[in-house]
């Protein structure tokens, strides 16, 4: 079911590398790399299109033994949404202020880390050493360019 209120983790055009307590995700469509901390990765894995946000919060509470509320899950969903890691864009219930308030509230009360979806930028050494030279050119940079900011490059 592709109902935005039952979020579903995107699977297409992604390369996933699991670490001991994080998940690294490379988006082949945008050439962007992300690092999901443990909390974010647990939420992401729980997004199977059949669970509501409430169901996911309940699942996390059961798995962690801690009290996880819907706001915690929405924090993760928001970031997954922003980073295009859900198969259908989910309408957020949080605006900037309510997110800030939620972070404060959850951060102080929570015994588990706040969910974070961080971008991984290519190291300088990587940009210098590849043959990809992105210059302004009216074509799309093919997959593989480590310059995630490339918007119209030509890989040579």
């Amino acid at each position, binding site marked *: 079911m592709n109902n935005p209120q039952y979020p579903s983790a995107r699977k297409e055009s992604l*390369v996933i590398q*699991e670490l001991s307590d994080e998940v690294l995700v*490379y988006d082949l469509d945008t050439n962007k790399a992300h690092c999901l901390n443990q909390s974010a990765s647990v939420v992401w894995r729980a997004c199977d299109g059949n669970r509501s946000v409430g169901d996911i919060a309940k699942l996390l509470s059961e798995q962690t033994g801690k009290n996880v509320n819907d706001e915690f899950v929405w924090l993760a969903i928001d970031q997954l949404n922003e980073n295009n890691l859900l198969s259908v864009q989910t309408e957020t219930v949080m605006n900037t202020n309510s997110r800030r308030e939620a972070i404060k509230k959850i951060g102080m009360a929570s015994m588990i880390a706040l969910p974070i979806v961080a971008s991984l930028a*290519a*190291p300088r050494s*990587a940009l210098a050493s*590849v043959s990809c030279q992105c*210059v302004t050119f009216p074509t799309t940079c093919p*997959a593989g360019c480590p310059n995630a900011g490339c918007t119209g490059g030509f890989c040579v």
Partner: protein
Amino acid sequence: MHTVTQFASSDEKWHLLVKRKNEQQVAESFDHLRKHNIEPVLIKGFAIAIKYPSDHPRIYSDIDLAVSKSAYSKALRLIQSDEQLSKLNIDLHCELRHLDTVEFNSVFERSSTISLNNTNIRVLAEEDHLRVLIAHWLNDGGESRDRLYDIRYAIENRSDSFDWDLCFDQLTPHRRKWIEYTISIAHIYLDLSIKDLPFKIDPKKLPTWLTKRVEMEWKHGTRLIPLQAAIFDRNTIAGQLLKRIAPNPIQSIIEMDGDLDTHFRFLYQGANLVKRTFRSISKIFLKDE
């Protein structure tokens, strides 16, 4: 699950993820081409990355595949039009081009496969790959210090059965010098050990102009890119034209299959300038491959 933990740096995580991505794409490129009965051979990239130590990962963004002359046109059409293949950053080579004089059939027969993501990837024999890596490095005018590590690690981490006679197989004396001089350069600048090599390498025999040029290229830092990639950017095209006005003598000599000991580098540079100009014009205006 990989043993890298949350305490790994962002750079380490990026390298790990991109390595995973690249390996997946290499395997996919082989799978897709084989569906169309094309058997490629992987050169550079992953094929040399496996020789690098874990604390010095080799970065690559494209997949260099060599196919036979008879398969080249079909492979090129597929790479440009096939939905799956066109998403992969494949750099297709018609055999090994002018950069190797050993018959491609012989090189192909000596190739072997290694397993990657449940796919068998065809790679050159170590000896042939070293020769190709050196020719490619010189053909790029020695401009990349980073890529010189390909040669260092290919030699340092070669297998016990590495056969230098095979590496020098059928080479003309001046092409043999390409190999010996590049090994000398890797010895001088990257501390490649040469004491266990079965032939004598004398770094003092390196032409002075060659080391000076390599140092100049590394200091300058601008890499040569095709003119059609630079044509729409004023700053980039200016830099690329300046770089071409006095063509890189190393590249010129290699492109013209010349002798690095020549005293007439200017002749090679002149011939190469004409050749490259015609090639660039045809690529820009005629959209030739």
